[in-house]
């Protein structure tokens, strides 16, 4: 084998956006020619190399082309220009359990799915017990998979895919599936592969994943490579520029419930000078400002916030009831501020839930679950060895021996 395991040279990929939803013979005959469509370049002259044993991240916003790049590597999509080469046995975790047949049993599907991923019957037979055990489905393996829960389905899918024993592994954020225990198992397995010198490419928008799991990264924006290099540097550059115009992430525009007597209309960050900002750093003084509109007078409301990491781990969940802060009533539009000084969150993406309830917290007026998004950029204290918050502690080293 010569050259690096993955080599991407000036790859461009064009997508067509058709004016009709579906093409048809009928439409073609009636129009008397080819379908009309617009083109756009999902990837534009992308080049990078991944060397042996590297864990490489593709980061970028939704629609930046990172998933398209991964699908090109997986040979699912064919680039229109340029060349790419993947050397060695490759396994792609794009969707777990793709190709499971609902009528067939778990056992039959393991063999079918395994052979789609390129395993021979012999290899599958020798790994079968391991696959089933890893998925934790010993008792259900002879049941048709249509009777599986979605968790079981995904577990079996992951278990088959990871047991392909690839030299090059492509992962598309599918690891964020299943229960927490299984997620941990998956991450451990990926870490094992990493330690055994396999080459891994992971598509993610979690900067924590980039920092903690990856050696190198490429940041894509609108199909163009903005930066390639060591993971930490790329993550900092990405955070510094890419996220600033994203107050509310439409994609994570989570669920919302409540009576609607009070509506939470927005959450924003306010800096020390009272200016609304989207640019906060570790160590800054900031306020989280909730905007509300009360349709009728509401006595003694309780406001609360939940702050989560992009991976869904809750960092904190303050509310006005536990802080013993009360107003007699609210009416019309107004704001509530939670002042934080200093902000001890480390750089990364965070998600906010906001809620307003009655005095007893038993009656929800409006709960906007994971509806808002903000990014923290490097500041002081400066820490780059993982984690979510800084202790802001002071070291004292006794050097006298």
């Amino acid at each position, binding site marked *: 084998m010569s050259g690096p395991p993955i080599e991407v040279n000036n790859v461009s990929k064009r997508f067509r956006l058709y004016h009709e939803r579906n093409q048809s013979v009928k439409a073609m005959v009636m129009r008397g020619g080819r379908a009309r469509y617009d083109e756009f370049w999902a990837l534009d002259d992308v080049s990078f190399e991944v060397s042996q044993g590297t864990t490489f991240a593709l980061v970028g916003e939704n629609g930046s082309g990172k998933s398209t790049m991964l699908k090109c590597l997986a040979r*699912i*999509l*064919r680039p229109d220009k340029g060349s790419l080469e993947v050397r060695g046995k490759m396994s792609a975790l794009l969707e777990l359990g793709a*190709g499971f047949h609902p009528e067939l049993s778990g056992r*039959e599907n393991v063999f*079918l799915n395994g052979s789609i991923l390129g395993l021979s019957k012999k290899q599958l037979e020798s790994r079968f017990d391991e696959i089933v055990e890893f998925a934790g489905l010993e008792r259900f393996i002879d049941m048709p998979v249509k009777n599986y829960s979605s968790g079981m389905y995904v577990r079996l899918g992951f278990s088959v895919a990871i047991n392909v024993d690839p030299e090059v592994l492509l992962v598309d954020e599918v690891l964020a599936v299943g229960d927490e225990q299984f997620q941990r198992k998956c991450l451990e397995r990926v870490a094992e592969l990493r330690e055994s010198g396999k080459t891994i490419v992971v598509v993610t928008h979690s900067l924590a994943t980039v920092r903690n799991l990856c050696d190198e990264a490429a940041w894509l924006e609108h199909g163009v490579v903005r930066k390639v290099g060591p993971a930490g540097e790329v993550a900092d550059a990405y955070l510094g520029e890419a996220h600033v115009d994203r107050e509310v992430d439409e994609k994570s525009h989570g669920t919302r419930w409540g009576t609607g007597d009070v509506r939470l209309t927005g959450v924003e960050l306010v800096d020390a000078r009272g200016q609304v900002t989207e640019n906060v750093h570790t160590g800054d003084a900031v306020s989280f400002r909730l905007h509300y509109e009360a349709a009728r007078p509401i006595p003694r409301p309780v406001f609360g916030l939940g702050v989560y990491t992009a991976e869904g781990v809750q960092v904190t969940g303050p509310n006005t009831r536990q802080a013993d802060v009360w107003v007699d009533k609210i009416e019309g539009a107004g704001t509530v501020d939670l002042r934080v000084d200093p902000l001890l969150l480390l750089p990364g993406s965070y998600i906010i839930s906001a809620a307003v309830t009655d005095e007893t917290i038993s009656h929800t007026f409006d709960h906007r679950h994971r509806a808002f998004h903000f990014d923290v950029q490097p500041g002081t204290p400066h820490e780059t060895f993982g984690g979510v918050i800084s202790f802001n502690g002071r070291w004292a080293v006794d050097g006298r021996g």
Partner: protein
Amino acid sequence: MTKLQEITSRRELFVNLTLRELRGKYKRSALGWLWSLLNRLTTMLLFSFVFRYFLRVDPPVGDPSGLHFFAFFLMCGLLPFNFLSQSLTGGMASLIGNANLVKKTYFPREILVAANTASWLVSFLIELSLLAVALLFVGNVAFVWLPAILMLIVIQTMFVGGLALMLSAAAVYFRDLEHLVGIVMQAWFYTAPIVYPISYVTNQVKKDSIWWTIYNLNPLTRFVEAYRDFFYNLRWPPADQLAYIVVVSVITLIAGYLVFGRLEGRMAEEL
């Protein structure tokens, strides 16, 4: 590794996908295979009544077998037609129905179409065997022609596979293609000598007319006649006609493979 080598290296996947098609078709029905056989039997009985007794279609006497039996005459043409028709319909659904696989995993996509055709081939083989067994009761020992019959089946499978490759790839881009093909299949059924003997055509059109040439160029006509020669008449089909379907089938398969390769590039996006 060239594409062709890659396809042949995935034989195991091909077998597994074929088994999946077969299991998917017949699992969860108490009668399983019997349903499809019952279906064939019903068609045979209905066609026999309508064409033999109401419309008075008179099948030719087998030469040299001496067999004179409409149901057998019919089945020799109907079974190869069904193989063709089901493979094309199933082939067009094979990529669209497995969109998830095409969009999320990689393997040569030709295998999906090939596995579908293979699953219909298995049904076809079983039906042909039953036909051959039934023919024993009326004294036609078609089994002695087995090697030649297998050759003919291989040739037809090439023809069917080539068409299935073309249509399946085109169906990804034109979703209403199946309707069009449905119409074409109906026309194809009646323009080949399946429910009537070919002599009925020569009675109406002159042997030197353009219509007769066109009628004879239809590969399905040649296939049906060849199957009938082996099973019904118990004789070799004319060599020139065999040569014709071999050439047509090889060309169709190569064309199917090339067309598929050309259309494959944007398949995952279009699905």
